[in-house]
């Protein structure tokens, strides 16, 4: 903490709270300037990144961003596009050319690729306006998902569920022998051989969600998995 910082790194701050004084710092996401002060514009964790003052969100609804991997359900199919419900106000659109890594002929019946009700993992490629979000189903990792358990978590907790370089989610996958895909939109797909193991994976993810900001979380989850998976 420097003398111009009024709060400590990772402190919980609330809208209107003063974070820093002076002109040496710049307000970034979740912060704004008023005179010589920088203040929080949302609830979150204070973060100083070089000269940038940020507030990392702790709650709130998922808002689509470019390059996000998301999980959703196909709601509608037209002659040249699919619509996906991802829990956002408007469906996300996937145009035919983004539908598959294989070539889709112009006169193809798109329902043969993805039909209403199918669960898919897709990637957002355009999020310019809330009403117009485009996604791709041909980028690496994108595909139709098989039968599995879908749970919902706070989208702000997704980075913790995944962990550094995917360490947390890898640990859960290995311990429970489940296949798990985490969408940035807070939807998590879990599929394993054993339904009990799927429930343990779900419980571990819910535990991370609830305790996202505690220290030593990796050890706690490791212990939890050891105990439960016996």
């Amino acid at each position, binding site marked *: 903490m420097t003398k111009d910082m009024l709060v400590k790194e990772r402190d919980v701050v609330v809208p209107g709270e003063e974070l820093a004084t002076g002109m040496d710092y710049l307000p970034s996401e979740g912060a704004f300037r008023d005179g010589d002060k920088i203040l929080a514009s949302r609830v979150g964790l204070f973060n100083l990144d070089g000269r940038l003052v940020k507030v990392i969100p702790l709650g709130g609804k998922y808002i689509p961003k470019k390059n996000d991997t998301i999980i959703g359900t196909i709601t509608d199919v037209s002659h040249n596009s699919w619509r996906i419900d991802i829990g956002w106000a408007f469906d996300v659109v996937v145009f035919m050319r983004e539908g598959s890594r294989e070539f889709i002929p112009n006169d193809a019946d798109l329902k043969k690729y993805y039909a209403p009700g199918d669960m898919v993992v897709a990637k957002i490629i355009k999020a310019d306006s809330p009403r117009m979000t485009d996604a791709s189903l041909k980028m690496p990792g994108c595909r139709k998902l098989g*039968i*599995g*358990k*879908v749970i919902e978590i706070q989208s702000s907790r997704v980075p913790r569920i995944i962990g550094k370089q995917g360490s947390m989610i890898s640990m859960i996958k290995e311990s429970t022998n489940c296949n798990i895909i985490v969408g940035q939109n807070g939807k998590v797909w879990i599929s394993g051989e054993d*339904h*009990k193991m799927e*429930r343990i994976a779900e419980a571990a993810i819910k535990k991370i969600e609830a305790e996202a900001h505690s220290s030593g979380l990796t050890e706690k989850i490791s212990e939890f998995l050891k105990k439960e998976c016996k």
Partner: protein
Amino acid sequence: MKKYIEAVLLNGERIDGRKFEEFRKPVEVSYDVSNKAEGSARVKIGKTEVIAGVKMDVGTPYPDSADRGNLMMGAERLPVSSPEFLPGPPNAETIELARIVDRGIRESGMIDLKKLCIREGELVWNIIVDIYTINDDGNLIDASALAAVAALKNAVLPELVNDRVQWGKFTKTKVPLNFEAINATVYKIGKELVIDANRDEEAAADARLSVSVSETGSVHAMQKGGRIGMSIDEIDKAIGMAIEAVKPLREVLK
């Protein structure tokens, strides 16, 4: 998710690991939600939460029940409790919810309405129970029914002076109750029957049967919902499951 839920059920399990005839845990009942109510209660079944309150008034009885008090049951699925509930007048689902709860209490004879007659043909007590949903995580019906019963158990008569209710002044006289009528709803998902569906199970359910059971184990009210039929064997099995499932809930009310 429906396919997944059905696959898990076929394997003899539920997605949250419960037994088929088991309510979520904990089932919690607390009282005195509002000190302005003659009685009130809050019920939580898992993360599903409902509050109910009793207000009382006096009035002239209906001609066909001149020696009895009246019961009125209202419900509102508050928009706070789900993104799917919107403000506005009650829709068919909300009215059905109130009427399922109403019949369970009314038909079981749980309230001794004759004791709520002040002067036959002239003046009787009216009991008005209002149910409000707070958080919908599945099976609002059973949570609402339990909240209504708990609020009635908690209720006392207000003071009455010269046939006028003294608002805000309560007596120590309890609303006369015989026993508790408890509702359990059995959900049919694919070919399987489960008690107390959570939100995912409820969304996957094809049909449901609500069964109101009194202390003797008699059934006093039922309601089938959903647009898929049930066989006589399924109905028989569902009633049996409901009769068993309400037993632990009766303990929670004590």
